[in-house]
């Protein structure tokens, strides 16, 4: 059902895929009012896709989960897909990931088999122009905000598109992926805290002792993990405080929950460690049944990894500007 009737050109959702949502860089600045940030699970691939089609870094695109959609374009656009690797078929012709390609008016882009990674990002020149809610187009499913009526895409939806800066006729060679795509297992780095004192002295060791399995009831809010239990030293309740992206909160069960893009703004469980910013996109490429291992690193290492990632992104942005 089409909830949006754009006057201009759009993209018709022929098949929605498993969980396809509109995402921009997130709804920042309102966490004090209880508004979750949201945004892409793998922000680096989201930004890479935008760079390849010459969009602004935070332009709204699609996040695709495990099973991709089929989309039909009203007018000619430049499109790029980054993140998880899928077979991409444009009117039956195979298209590369991590490279811009031109989609002509009336053409259909279909996602086929998924090869590696959990989430792919589609950027379309001009960006998706659904009306912003509280300053952002990011879909937040729990609060029903942003994107198309606050929900995942459905067949028949028409996504309005923005004015592209320019349509250009050249395509470039595929860009190397910036986030190393994990094949059903990833090792991510963490910094201890903010509440390590709530845990027994060996809990940080336990966290690093074996991989955790991502439980089936994991989603964009958080990954419920099953693995070595983490023992509390002062009980499992704290006075509710802020819950940053990538933090590992630990309820009474001792089994940690990794808080992801759609997390609530605050929570009442102690937090043992926080995944470094550079590795959050790697975690974002995992899904239920996959495994994740944690390793403590230093702040210096965390920042160096982030700088390397930023340099790689800026190089692509400069090349396509």
């Amino acid at each position, binding site marked *: 059902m089409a909830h949006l009737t754009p006057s201009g050109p759009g993209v018709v959702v022929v098949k929605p895929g498993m969980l396809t949502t509109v995402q921009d860089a997130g709804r920042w600045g309102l*966490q004090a009012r*209880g508004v979750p940030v949201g945004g892409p699970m793998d922000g680096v691939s989201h930004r890479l896709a935008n760079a390849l089609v010459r969009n602004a870094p935070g332009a709204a695109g699609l996040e695709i989960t495990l099973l991709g959609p089929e989309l039909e374009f009203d007018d000619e656009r430049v499109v790029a897909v980054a993140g998880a690797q899928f077979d991409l078929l444009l009117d039956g012709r195979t298209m590369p990931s991590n490279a811009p390609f031109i989609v002509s008016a009336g053409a259909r882009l279909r996602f086929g088999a998924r090869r590696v990674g959990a989430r792919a990002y589609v950027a379309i020149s001009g960006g998706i122009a659904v009306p912003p809610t*509280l300053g952002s187009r990011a879909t937040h499913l729990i609060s029903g905000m942003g994107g198309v009526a606050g929900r995942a895409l459905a067949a028949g939806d028409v996504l309005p598109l923005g004015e592209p800066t320019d349509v250009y006729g050249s395509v470039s060679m595929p860009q190397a992926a910036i986030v190393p795509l994990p094949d059903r297992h990833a090792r991510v780095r963490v910094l201890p805290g903010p509440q390590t004192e709530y845990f027994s002295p060996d809990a940080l060791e336990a966290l690093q002792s074996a991989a955790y399995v991502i439980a089936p009831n994991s989603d964009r809010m958080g990954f419920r993990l099953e693995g070595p239990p983490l023992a509390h030293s002062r009980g499992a309740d704290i006075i*509710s405080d802020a819950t940053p992206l990538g933090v590992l909160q630990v309820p009474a069960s001792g089994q940690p929950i990794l808080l992801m893009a759609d997390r609530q*703004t605050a*929570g009442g469980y102690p937090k043992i460690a926080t*995944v*470094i910013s550079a590795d959050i996109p790697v975690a974002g490429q995992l899904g239920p049944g996959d495994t994740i291992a944690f390793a403590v690193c230093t702040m210096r290492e965390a*920042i160096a990894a*982030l700088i390397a990632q930023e340099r790689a992104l800026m190089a692509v942005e400069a090349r396509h500007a």
Partner: protein
Amino acid sequence: MSTAYRIVPAGDSALIVEFEERIDPAVNAKTIACAEAIQGAAIAGVRDVVPTYRSVAVYFDPLRTDTDALLERIAHDAERAAPAARAAQTPIRIPVCYGGDLGPDLARVASFANLTEDDVIRLHSDATYRVFMLGFVPGFAYLGLVDQRIAMPRHATPRVRVPLGSVGIAGVQTGIYPAETPGGWQLIGRTPVKPFDPARADPFLMKAGDAVQFYAIDRAEYDREAAR
């Protein structure tokens, strides 16, 4: 006057300022004053400043922030954080239709407190509450402190669906559900006022530090207001 606090990192992109570890209006006032000072400083690279009961989270982009200067600034503001000498705050007054099918747990709370339903309504609506923080869902305000006599703990098994506008009690906290969500609070009534409406000029009815009072309305008035 200096104040007790510590600053701890949460990963590489957030710093948390923690004040005394208790739910206390004075500590919370200090927390909010500190958050307002940091927010007011408009530091380059800072993306969000989030006060909760007794701590402030400062989210920043580590590649676009002078982290040493930020740390210094936060310490400066935490050191001096004192409840703003505000003129007596005018409370936000919120109408509630208590009991009946709009407040299905009112009778339970009354029996928990060994009081009549009218007593519970009186105790709930006599108090002036403080908005300690917002969280859970957009616009959800944690209000306190509820009179100890009616401070009933939440349900062991949460309801799958709590209607928008439901007014609940969970221990010494009270609050209004701004959206239809699952929830375990004891529901004693419902308000026709929306705590959160993204289409409204100011989408949020409350912010941390506000004062709030509830007053009883009858079903006819509730229905009239809800229909508007």
